[in-house]
């Protein structure tokens, strides 16, 4: 076991808006495969495999998300799934961190930097998208109808995005 505690890209950042928080260290494994024995979600949807969330990223690409520390188990699971077939399993847990934006202001905040239509008739719990939030590439998913959104952002962009969120949430206290 590691004797060093991991440190998130947003360590030390506090969000003034109570409805924004970081969910650091989630396990994330990138899966590329032309075929896979378990059903995987189609475009712009989130599914699950063995209790882990599976986010569609592209026609042959998914991101499997689990709790912190789960990456080795996910990798094993996915490698078994691919078997002898052609596929790729890459641990990208530390590539991104996750921000949760939730509650009645969430849509208005995200709309300031995201051009995707987040209206509940269009984008709902279980939906995901790779898109831009302000000037950062993100993976956006809606978790529940509250609504709660998760924003997955590259570590190097996270301080920028945190600063952007601080500004965008200003009017909502």
């Amino acid at each position, binding site marked *: 076991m590691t004797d060093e505690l991991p440190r998130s890209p947003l360590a030390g950042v506090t969000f003034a808006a109570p409805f924004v928080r970081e969910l650091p260290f989630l396990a994330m494994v990138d899966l590329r495969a032309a075929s896979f024995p378990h059903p995987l979600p189609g475009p712009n949807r989130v599914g699950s495999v063995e209790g882990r969330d599976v986010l569609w990223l592209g*026609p042959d690409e998914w991101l499997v998300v689990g709790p912190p520390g789960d990456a080795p188990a996910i990798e094993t699971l996915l490698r078994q799934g691919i078997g002898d077939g052609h596929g790729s399993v890459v641990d990208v847990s530390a590539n991104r961190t996750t921000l949760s934006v939730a509650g009645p202001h969430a849509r208005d905040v995200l709309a300031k930097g995201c*051009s995707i239509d987040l209206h509940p008739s269009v984008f709902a719990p279980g939906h995901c998208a790779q*898109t831009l939030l302000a000037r950062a590439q993100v993976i956006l998913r809606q978790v529940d109808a509250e609504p709660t959104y998760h924003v997955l952002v590259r570590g190097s962009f996270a301080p920028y995005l945190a600063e952007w969120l601080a500004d965008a949430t200003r009017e909502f206290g």
Partner: protein
Amino acid sequence: MLLIPCPWCGPRDEVEFSYGGAADVAYPPDPDALSDAEWGEYVFVRDNPRGPFAERWVHTAGCRRWFRAVRDTATHEFLEAP
């Protein structure tokens, strides 16, 4: 801000994409067999019509897939679903 039809993610704003210029220009199977003029043509010369244009985009901020689309360069309308 064009609305570009990504065949995988659906229509998205232009800022999510990068442009790839003319489509349907295949890499020569044997570049060494080409004359300098033929190779120069492959590297540098592309169609540039006013009107329908088969072009390539890559959904950089999305699924990172390259795709082909036909767009009218006089009106910016996409003419065929990719």
